[in-house]
């Protein structure tokens, strides 16, 4: 609740409408690309629209954030504004959690219900009469109808690259916390170094992940077309990977701002928001590691 007198209502801004146009072009273009290539129609125009939309989005995001940064530097934001930003970020992360919960829920369902039923186990086991010879196992290597799918050689165990990746991300959360503590004490130099270390770890993680995908496609025959295991594996690690990429970009921007001296020990919400996001991405990975690789 507020006792502040100086609530700040920003002036008119063009960014929202630019963002809407950008979103429309980007996703409309992307849809056109997908539909046209599925029908083997030419996709050039669609690509142009998509690119235009994406550029518009980038323009919007950078412009919008620049405004916010400038306003913040101009001292327009008070404690109440700060709380609103924090809440906004917090609930945004909550929505991301809900998204990943849906994916985890889906994995749980196929693993403990759908696949066993198809294999003749449990309450709906009569499904097996349609899939003669199919046996339920997890990870699912042999599909109910193998003719339609690529059969993977085997799937990744947890104690190889996945474990390395886990170590990388956990460490990155720790280094980020070191950086944050240093920043709070206004120790700029260690703050910068630890943040740079975090970004380095993130990039290594992404490298490992890319290598794993390469292995999967090139040598294991584990692809999106490899039935439900492949689908789930790439869906979950893929969406996590996208979040890591996004998080890395955020951290890089923060590093740039830190170098420019944007943050002080007291006031650095932008930094904190980025850090929250990174920790969230880390926690999701740990859940993924347990559920997708170990179990």
């Amino acid at each position, binding site marked *: 609740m507020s006792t502040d007198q100086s609530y700040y209502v920003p002036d008119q801004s063009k960014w929202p409408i630019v963002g809407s146009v950008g979103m429309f072009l980007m996703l409309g273009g992307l849809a056109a690309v997908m539909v046209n290539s599925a029908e083997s129609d030419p996709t050039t125009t669609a690509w142009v629209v998509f690119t235009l939309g994406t550029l518009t989005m980038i323009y919007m995001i950078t412009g919008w954030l620049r405004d916010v940064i400038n306003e913040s530097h101009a001292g327009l934001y008070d404690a109440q504004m700060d709380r609103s930003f924090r809440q906004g970020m917090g609930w945004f992360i909550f929505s991301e959690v809900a998204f990943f919960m849906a994916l985890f829920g889906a994995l749980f369902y196929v693993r403990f219900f759908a696949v066993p*039923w*198809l294999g003749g186990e449990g309450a*709906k086991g*009569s*499904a097996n*009469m*349609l*899939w*003669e010879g199919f046996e339920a196992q997890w990870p699912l290597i042999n599909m*109910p*109808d193998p*003719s339609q799918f690529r059969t993977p050689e085997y799937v990744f165990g947890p104690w190889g690259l996945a474990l390395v990746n886990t170590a990388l991300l956990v460490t990155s959360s720790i280094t980020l916390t070191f950086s944050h503590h240093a920043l709070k004490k206004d120790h700029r130099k260690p703050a910068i170094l630890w943040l740079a270390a975090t970004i380095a770890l993130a990039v290594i993680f992404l490298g490992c992940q890319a290598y794993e995908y390469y292995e999967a496609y090139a040598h294991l025959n584990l692809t999106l077309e490899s039935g439900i295991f492949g689908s789930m594996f790439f869906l979950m690690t893929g969406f996590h990977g996208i979040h890591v990429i996004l998080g890395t970009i955020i951290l890089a921007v923060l590093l740039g701002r830190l170098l420019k001296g944007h943050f002080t020990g007291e006031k650095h919400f932008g930094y904190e928001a980025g850090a929250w996001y990174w920790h969230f991405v880390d926690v999701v990975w740990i859940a993924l590691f347990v559920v997708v690789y170990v179990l």
Partner: protein
Amino acid sequence: MSVQALRTGALAVAGLAPASAIAESEWGVNLPYGVTPISQSIYDIHMVVFWICVAIGVGVFLAMFWSIFAYRKSKGAKAAHFHENTTVEVIWTVVPLLILIGMAVPATQTLVKMYDTSDAELDVKITGYQWRWRYEYIEEEIDFFSNPTTPTAQRTGASEKGPNYLMEVDNHLVLPANRKVRFLITANDVIHSWWVNDFGVKQDAIPGFVNEAWAIVKEPGIYRGLCAELCGQGHAFMPIVVEVLPEDEYDEWMAEQIRETHGDSAAEGDDGEVPVATLNQGN
């Protein structure tokens, strides 16, 4: 048809429709009582719950109308000042809860019965296709499609609509009366739903999975049903017709079918030796 339609329209506009509608029984205003134990216990629960809901509704409406008529400002009503009372709050939390528990008990019993597909004397596999049904008598290895037969001309209005408009097929599903039949329901393309309301059976047909349902039909006769899950543009045009025969007639019919399909020897023979069909649907 159209005279009746005109009359109906006129009645509706006059606002008399609901009253006359219920009077004319041929209009069909309620669930059928049906011909299987399940459809009948569903009907009973339905009526109990329906009357409870009517009673609650009437109570709520009476209280409202009382307030509406008795406490009008225009009639000089002055507002009282109460705005809280824990006792009534507790009462109107607990009483509905008890009513609900009362409904849940018979519902649970019926549901448990519906799920008991054991000890069936006949297994029929039903597969939904866009837009027709396929029936397989698993043990007997009889297998046929059931296609809708209503002519397009009737749909477009080019010819008079028959009495069974949209509810007629070429091959009926034939079942014996008084025997427990188990339906194994699946689909070949998209989800359909096999529904015969006189049996109280509605089960989604899910491609790649098998749902079970059962029926014991007491009265021979012809029963009609419809596909109940949106399955594309032919959704309204894939009816179900089940012909229930007295047991001996059914056995004759079945013998005839077996003769036609498998030749004479099979018809005489020991049905134990006929291998159970396990058809992989694999598209």
